[in-house]
């Protein structure tokens, strides 16, 4: 299945192509892949995160589906 993954702020450095940037990359993943699996694959730091799938907050044990957009942010805030 194909899943688009976008990483923000300093997490962008963890995109496998090493190019940085906030644009999504398309990943070809086996069925049943969870968000937690992808966090491990991408080597994201062990810290709180804000995770969206298709513009909604998602738990890290959620299973991804074909056509999903996964977006991951480090702990950030402003105002």
């Amino acid at each position, binding site marked *: 299945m194909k899943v688009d993954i976008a990483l923000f702020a300093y997490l962008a450095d963890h995109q496998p192509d090493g190019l940085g940037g906030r644009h999504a990359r398309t990943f070809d993943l086996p069925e049943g892949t969870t968000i937690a699996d992808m966090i491990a694959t991408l080597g994201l730091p062990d810290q709180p995160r*804000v995770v969206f799938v298709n513009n909604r907050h998602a738990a890290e044990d959620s299973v991804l589906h074909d056509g999903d957009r996964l977006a991951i942010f480090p702990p950030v805030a402003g105002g």
Partner: protein
Amino acid sequence: MREILYVDMSTLSIERKPLPEKWHRYGGRALTDAIVYDMVPPTADPLGQENVLVFAPGLLGGTTAPNGGRLSIGAKSPLTGGLKESNAGGQAAHGLGKLKIAAIVVTGKPADPDARYMLTIEADGSAKLSRVDEWAGASNYALADAIKAMRPADDRYSTITNGPAGEAGLKAAGIAVSDMKGYPNRFAGRGGLGAVMGSKGLKAIVVSDKGLPYLEHADTEAFDAAMKRFSTALTTHPVSGTGLPTYGTNVLMNILNEAGGLPTRNFSTGQFEDVEGVSGEKQREVTLERGGNVKHGCHTGCVIQCSRYWVDKDGAYVTKGPEYETAWAFGTDCGISDMDVVAELDRICGEYGLDTIEMGNTLAVYMDSGAIPFGDGAAAIKALKSVFEGGAPGRIIGDGAEAVGIKFGVEHIPVVKHQAMPAYEPRAVQGIGVTYATSTQGADHTAGYTITANILGVGGTVDPLKTEGQSDLSKNLQIATAMLDALGLCIFVAFPVLDIPDAFVAIFDMAAAHTGDVWDTDELLRLGRETLTFERLFNEGAGFTAADDRLPVWMKTLPLPPHNTVFEVTDADLDAVFDFVPETAKAMGLR
């Protein structure tokens, strides 16, 4: 020990009196509220003789409390018609605190409407009013230069200045406070308080704290211990310790866009396809490429360091930030993705003394009328400049989004209590809708920043698209925020405080050790409730009812993409937010 400096602009006299005992636990917003509540009839004309303008550092102002140098400015608002507290960073609050001035209270109006005055407070505590008629119409940056030229080279001082927007009585006029480098770029922007300052003929306040030490404490050892615990919480929490100092407030742009809660083109959709150009990450990259500063505090004693300077292509300073709200207002909400355009609009507001949130909304509403296209930066700059440089639409821009929306026949005007909404969509972030609707301040995100639990996962999680829990979330944050504003703490300390229990304890430990009074959880929350109670009672007296605690009707009927949701929190839930006011008012002896 603390005193109030009364400045009567009718008689041009100044008096310094002890802070009344009844207010000795108050600072910042609690004190500006208490004084306005006490002195101003709620039905007063905001630009008339009866209104007063109050400047107050927080209870911890003038101490080494981390992030404790925020300034509250209060008056009856010309924009909302209610009791306004507008909050700014910059250097003035610590200066006043060190001078043991709990508040400057400016009353009356000069007989000559063309007269302009500067109030100078020297480090020895003396204060005087000087005539500065030649500064009429001067911009904030010109005032900063003129004041610098007058002060001794070895002085240490801060400025509070009022640009031409305030002199013109415009409802979106804000008041500028100087930062650590002397730039007049920290703003008490919201609610038109610059117009109140202008109505009093007051063009500038200079506060010198040359050679003055930080304040002593009732228990120095206990204060220092609590201060260190608080500082550690701020610097180790990932948001205040890493996220904010690295990217600044504008790191929010992408996350709100991802959540579908980023108001775009006058609140017509929740995502901006060209968000990258005005995102915090891009802002950091460009600023670093151009040699700008990406990490400093807006005031001495800030350990979060979320401020930054935008520089032009030649590396010359243009403006601060831009902060998230400003980048959103002039960027996303106007369909503009060029940060240089955003920065130019920000600088123009800085010169004139206009609130960037209100002005971004105003330009977006003007664009929505069809007068100029969304996304047209040059047309936006021309429209903003027309406030003072002529052409269309002219001065009405400075009166804000509602004034322009009515004049140009725009259906969707995103205001509550006449004040324009900040950078979060109530239809996609229901909790912030509760805050916008119910806040005594008009639509104001800082009043009860539910983005914490709604979007950022700080202090728990509350689903932004559901109605459950939003009323309680907003209520609790509104009380906590009023408390932080009264202490003079930056509201960004809330991020660690919501997650690290000892950070909250450290706050009341600092307050207790500094003042020698008893402070604990109950007392801090009581301070917050009392602050809000002054505001609610004043607003009631000014004619506000439950009908004013509502969002514009179209936000309850017109679905917002991409979630295609409307604002659904019930009126009963909105009316429950201030359920503590009658009991608090009774306990305060106000009812």
